[in-house]
């Protein structure tokens, strides 16, 4: 533990950046090491080692999101090959619960961040729009857990949802108007009235025991 001093400083820094407590960061770091096999970075393959993730229907989308540079608060676009612990924390910080003492502005920002994460997950081609095709992909994956729903019905559901989105965001459209896809502004509009901040969060405490027994 020669590096313990610099480590704690680092943790302090990370805590400020991501809003996690140093305790949480330590937990996450342990988990990170576990996942990466003591490597400094995590690659996509490492996620294959998580057995519980296997059955997740939108697994690929989620794993993808971890490597999406847009989510990593980097200015560049595209996909990262590997992420280091800080990136890992950044991704995790999207799932932090709201804090009681947040003011309106920060709350709004927080909310937007969460939504952006979600948006990026849907917008797989990084063009700032969730096109119908992208939406369909998501829905198909979502429903892939149900072997009795065909792709076709997933599609029609996606189409229906897209229609709904169009009607929410644009309202009555002219006959020849074309709705290209859901932009982030539209996405925000759709989420109005839904408390994403009360839903999109994970408890990051108390994971010590489980993390160790893996």
């Amino acid at each position, binding site marked *: 533990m020669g590096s313990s001093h610099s480590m704690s400083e680092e943790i302090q820094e990370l805590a400020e950046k991501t809003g996690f407590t140093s305790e949480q960061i330590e937990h996450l770091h342990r988990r990170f090491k576990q996942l990466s096999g003591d490597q400094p970075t995590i690659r996509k393959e490492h996620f294959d080692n998580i057995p519980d993730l296997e059955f*997740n229907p939108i697994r690929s989308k*989620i794993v993808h999101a971890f490597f999406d540079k847009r989510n990593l608060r980097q200015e560049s676009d595209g996909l990262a090959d590997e992420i280091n612990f800080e990136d890992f924390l950044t991704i995790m910080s999207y799932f932090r619960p709201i804090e009681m003492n947040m003011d309106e502005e920060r709350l709004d920002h927080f909310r937007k961040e969460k939504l952006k994460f979600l948006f990026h997950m849907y917008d797989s081609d990084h063009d700032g729009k969730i096109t119908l095709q992208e939406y369909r992909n998501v829905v198909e994956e979502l429903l892939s857990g149900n072997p*009795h729903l*065909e792709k076709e019905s997933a599609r029609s559901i996606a189409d229906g949802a897209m229609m709904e989105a*169009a009607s929410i965001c644009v309202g009555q459209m002219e006959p020849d*108007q074309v709705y290209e896809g859901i932009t982030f502004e539209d996405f925000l509009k759709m989420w109005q009235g839904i408390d994403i901040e009360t839903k999109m969060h994970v408890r990051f405490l108390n994971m010590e025991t489980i993390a160790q027994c893996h």
Partner: protein
Amino acid sequence: MVPYLVAAWILVASLAKIVFQLSRKVTSVVPESCLLILLGLGLGGIVLAIAKKAEYQLEPNMFFFFLLPPIVLDSGYFMPSRLFFDNIGAILTYAVIGTLWNSFTTGVSLWGMQQAGLMDKGVEAGLMDFLLFGSLISAVDPVAVLAVFEEVHVNETLFIIVFGESLLNDAVTVVLYKVFNSFVEMGPAHVQVTDYVKGVASFFLVSLGGTAIGLLFAFLLALITRFTKRVRIIEPLFVFLIAYIAYLTAEMVSLSSILAVTFCGICCKKYVEANISRKSRTTVKYTMKTLASSSETIIFMFLGISAVDTSKWAWDTALVLGTLLFILLFRAVGVVLQTWVLNHFRLIPLDRIDQVVMSYGGLRGAVAFALVILLDRDKVKAKDYFVATTIVVVFFTVIVQGLTIKPLVKWLKVKRSDHHKPTLNEELHEHAFDHILAAVEDVVGHHGYHYWRDKWEQFDKKYLSQLLMRKSAYRIKDEIWDVYYKLNIRDAISFVDQGGHVLSAAKLTLPSMPSRTSVSESSVTNLLRESGSGARLDLQVIDTVRCRRDKEDAVMHHVLRGSLYKPRRRYKASYSRHFISPDKQERQDKEIFQQNMKRRLETFKSTKHNICSSKSKARLKKDVRKKKKNDALNSELPNGKPHRSVTWQETAPVTMMVNSEEEESDSSETEKEDDEGIVFVARATDEILQGKKTSSTGCPSHWGSLDICPSPCIIPPSPTLAEKELPWKGDQDSLAVYISSETTKIVPVDMKKAWNQSISSLESIASPTGVETGPHGKKLASPVLEEEPQSASPTMPEQRTCFQFPNHVAKSGRSQSDSSPESIEQQELQPLMVPEDHTRMSPSAGPSNSRWLIQFNRPTRL
């Protein structure tokens, strides 16, 4: 005499409800439960004045065996289970610890008051008596809470916590009540340590046992409803019966009956709803609500009436005031303390305002009253005092707190529940959320709530659902799909509601109205535009203006249909105790559903290009499914007759059809009502027959032609079978839209092609309803084109197109969406033009006369 009285009381109570609801002003301020109690007081007073003695009161037996179960079942069954389990930790805490805290503190404090000499000497009670009283008075009452909170509309979390607590604290109440009651009966001196241990043990036994019984019966119920396909009519009965048996079983072995029914309701719902038919679902819902609501009414009214019976009263001001003070105070303290602890664990903390509402919403009700009446006067000497106090407490909480909670909620600006309709996107995102969160927990390695929920869902999907749901049901049982389906239905209904008038008006504006022509043209152009690049409508088609004569004919058809259509229906009336024949409404629903999709798509021009091709395939799947059996034949045989014979001689195809039909209906309607047993088969046969015929002429499947009607005068020169079928119509091959005979689905023509494309995926069957509800509008154009090469005689597409659109447009300006109703009507119209006798002659017309398919078939035989 007794049954008569019961009926009379229920009638009075129900009438009272009507009267209350007459005045919106009153009911918006005063909760109904208050009014009912006051009414009960009034009625009791009258009875007292006349009979000189109080005749009626709330009998504990009646309450526990007949009045309470429906309410609990209702609340369990319609409990938003997701919300409930999301907050189960908080609910359990409040229900168990909160109730324990309340009863002990209240009991001890009252005892302290008595020891301090603040109470009347008449109150002969020891610590045990007060603890007993504390246990029965401290439990929040589900009936009262529901009655008041339903009108307040606080946010969901708050509601579920208070309400869930009121349901789950029953176990605690029952145990405490029983334990203390036995202590009191034994006499405090004889109570030993083992008795306390027993008391604690019995708590676990009672609560877990009650829950287990509930789960057991929920399982049983789900399993039973899996096999009720042939006895649809008694499906709803099972739900009530088994839930009630669960209640009685729990009661019999002295476990918590409320818990049993609650969990039975919560857990069976998913499977039962999937298994039973839609009609049964409605029946269950309404019966449950009716029973619960009337029980509640009677309970509150009888509470009022019982209060008049002063012979049971013994008033002690100190006791009454003390109890009121303590229950309010300790409830508040308890809530604050528990919330403080809970907030350390909750991700969304309960704020101070929530806590105020929770404390204030702790209403006491009929359960407390029934329990206090049940006390044995010989053993519990202070019973009369307790009764009086309980009545006051109940009245105070229900009336005073019930009255003030609404203003309080407003004043505190409690987050209200926003009753926005569920949207498809929301549902999708929420599902995505569940998976994302579970995934993140996996990644983090934290086995938290989402992790276990995910695990449970996998287990449910793999085993439980397979076991407890019908094949046809679980196939399509999916929340997303459910929302999708519901949304469509809702939209469709609202659409039809709006469109109804326009439609009739359109019918009235009769022959050769110039406007019509123009509208029709514009609609066609609209169509063209909308279908964008995908639309390859013949220009000729668009530009051709139908001759006036045709138009008038078409209009005439509508008029005729309008006036002649109904009588036909009526003559189908029949009675059967065991089967409910599909009624018009039901068919309408289906129609609307189809139409609606069209409309939705219409508003959704944007993505049309993409949708078009893929969608059509999806929609066609079903047809394809049906069709596949016949296909080989169809393609080989150019003309209809061979097919026909095949159909009739071969039994195998027929049965196949039945199957597919069943599947389809199941999937499409989440169980289309198949109450009609045999008729069903017959109908399927018809379909086949018809399908063959139509297909024989090049039309890909059995779908009836839709646009049929333009003008009877136009009969193609070469009378092919198809032409025989629809004399006034060119041929169906070129039709843009088809109506399926049994559900009137509008499907684009392009079946053949689509079928070819998707033949590989034929195996995957149940494509749910939504599938066929695609962008028909868009489809209209392209299918035609693709179909044309194959069509035997692409006679007069122009007519068809022209014909189709005018009507729709005239109706609501939406060109495509409206085409469906019109066409449906037209379809119905056909038979009218054909002598009835012919129908009779056709073998297919047998049992399913009421079905349109037959009507469809008739012309064929001409």
